[in-house]
């Protein structure tokens, strides 16, 4: 069982006024709802076999994507794993391009070449969904190396799961990033499980943030079910990194409501545990807060719901109506060299 870290509630200090602006709350709400609705439809489309292959949804973890939108700049880079639809959407890759990719269409974000696990967008500084557990940890570190080399104050958000935290590449990366003071923000999205393996079964040190301490890397655990807590932690870490102090490590505690992938019934966890987290649902939490504290009106919430509904409907329609890539595209993008002589 994972342990829920209670966030330092920012509103506890200022009892009346919300800690963030109305725009921020509405932005979070919109970002999270987009991901949730997008992925609910994704699962339906998977059921209809419009989407194939491995498909890992982010449902339950949306508060992290929301926090990233408000706390990180568009120029900052992001590298993550295969559970990436939510992060890609939050970066501003369109629902249409994402859905078309899942359908394996030419109009997808990577022309039907990547599917659910591999979106990329140079324009959005999205360095991929990686399918090899932990592989993006050194890659994200290298993206940060390049930013420092070029003298920018951008950072690279390098995201990985609790399972990935046990790969040797993490330890090598942490060491070099700290030694060379690279501008990398490591985020472990600890959703309690790597497939069917709970965090506590993978290490004598179940507190993943403590790994960073061995390198004297500033490292903290964060409540990942609430965008307020996520934003605060990210903003503080980003400031530290931009000031040239080197990497920062956040273990963000979250939960995935669905199985590991569409094929996993998730029998290794209890109904009670699932309910415990569904009660903390970040979308509900933010919606309640917005309405209770009168940050925005019900009409404004409804407008966002309608906007998202239309957007996702249109994304599905777009994906449906797009063409599949031509089989000959198998041979494109293997080499930059256009006339590469393939063996046949």
């Amino acid at each position, binding site marked *: 069982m994972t342990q829920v870290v209670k966030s330092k509630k920012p509103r506890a200090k200022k009892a009346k006024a919300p800690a963030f602006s109305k725009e921020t709350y509405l932005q979070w709400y919109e970002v999270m709802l987009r991901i949730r609705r997008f992925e609910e439809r994704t699962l339906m489309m998977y059921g209809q076999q419009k989407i194939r292959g491995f498909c890992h949804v982010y449902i339950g973890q949306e508060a992290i994507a929301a926090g990233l939108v408000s706390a990180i700049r568009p120029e900052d880079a992001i590298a993550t794993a295969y559970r990436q639809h939510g992060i890609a959407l939050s970066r501003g890759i369109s629902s249409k391009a994402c859905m078309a990719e899942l359908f*394996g269409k030419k109009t997808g974000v990577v022309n039907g070449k990547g599917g659910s696990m591999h979106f990329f967008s140079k324009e959005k500084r999205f360095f991929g969904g990686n399918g090899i557990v932990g592989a993006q940890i050194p890659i994200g570190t290298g993206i940060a190396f390049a930013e420092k080399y070029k003298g920018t104050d951008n950072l690279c958000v390098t995201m990985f799961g609790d399972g990935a935290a046990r790969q040797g590449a993490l330890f090598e990366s942490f060491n070099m990033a700290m030694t060379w003071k690279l501008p990398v923000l490591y985020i472990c999205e600890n959703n309690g499980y790597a497939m069917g393996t709970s965090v506590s079964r993978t290490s004598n040190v179940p507190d993943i943030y403590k790994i960073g301490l061995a390198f004297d890397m500033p490292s903290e655990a964060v409540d990942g079910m609430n965008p307020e807590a996520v934003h605060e932690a990210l903003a503080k870490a980003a400031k530290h990194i931009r000031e040239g102090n080197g990497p920062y490590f956040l273990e963000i505690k979250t939960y995935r409501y669905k199985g590991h992938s569409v094929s996993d019934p998730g029998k290794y966890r209890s109904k009670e545990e699932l309910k415990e987290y569904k009660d903390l649902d970040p979308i509900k939490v933010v919606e309640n807060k917005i309405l209770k504290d009168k940050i925005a009106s019900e009409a404004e919430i409804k407008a966002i719901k309608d906007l998202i509904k239309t957007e996702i409907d249109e994304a599905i329609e777009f994906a449906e109506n797009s063409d599949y890539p031509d089989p000959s595209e198998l041979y494109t993008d293997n080499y930059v060299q256009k006339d590469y002589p393939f063996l046949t």
Partner: protein
Amino acid sequence: MARKIALRDALREGMSEEMRRDENVFLMGEEVALYNGAYKVSKGMLDEFGERRVVDTPISELGFAGIGVGAAMNGLRPIIEFMTWNFAVLAFDQIVNNAAKTLSQSAGDFNCPILFRGPSGAAGQLGQQHSQTFESWMANVPGLKVISCIDPYDAKGLIKSAIRDEDPICMMESELYYNLEGEVPEEEYLVPIGLAAVRRQGTDVTIVSYNKMMLVAKAAAEELAKEGISAEVIDLRTIRPLDFQTIVDSVKKTNRLVIVDECWPFAGVSAEVTYEIQKFAFDYLDAPIVRVNSADTSLGYAAAFVEEFLPNPAKVIEAVKQVMYVK
């Protein structure tokens, strides 16, 4: 008495029988114990053998492969399961630099009786990183033996031989065909490492294949039979050491050879077979050897790519007609 069981059950029976027979055999890998295996190959083994001998690991391929090597050097007989061979890439250092070289480096003092196993090959629309075939990679390494099959009878007999073997072995299965059923006797038996099997007798052309491409080769042979072309089909079963003799004997009869190999073409299993056969059966060949491989590319997600990428019966039939100079 034979009964029909699935590939996953055959593999499990093989491992379980060897674990009952030899206390030093253990199984280690991701999700092998509590989850009963990502593809349910090890289902029930934790219940029977307990945590000491069926060991779940963190996602640390390099680490647990190396732990296997060390344990093998110190008297145990590890079975290291990779969820798929794509992830074994992280462990190549231990497989290639250590398991394969310990005997040579120690002048025979330490051997490394370890079995690395898991599914290999494309399995649908899984994209570039999850669709690779590894027989050629591993077979390139002196010191390793390589087994690759999906037939349940062979899989059980070979996995038992592999566990008893004194050398390090890589075994490739297929996640798409863990359900494939075949006749397997109740009684104990072994299938020797290093022997191919003739699956279908024929006189006009020899088709050599292994693992799930055997299904493609056999389907092509059946189609060809309808057109009056008699194909002999050989299942390699072991890739290293490779049973060239069985192929040579067949080619002496058919004078034509087509190789169906899911590995990429460059420096692959098909290239090796081609070299050896031109060397040992040159005078018997009536046409250049033709191979049907996966495309010389990475495999993207869209369905059309999978179709284009993989060998299929139509491509094999075309290759056969090419070596037979018929249209």
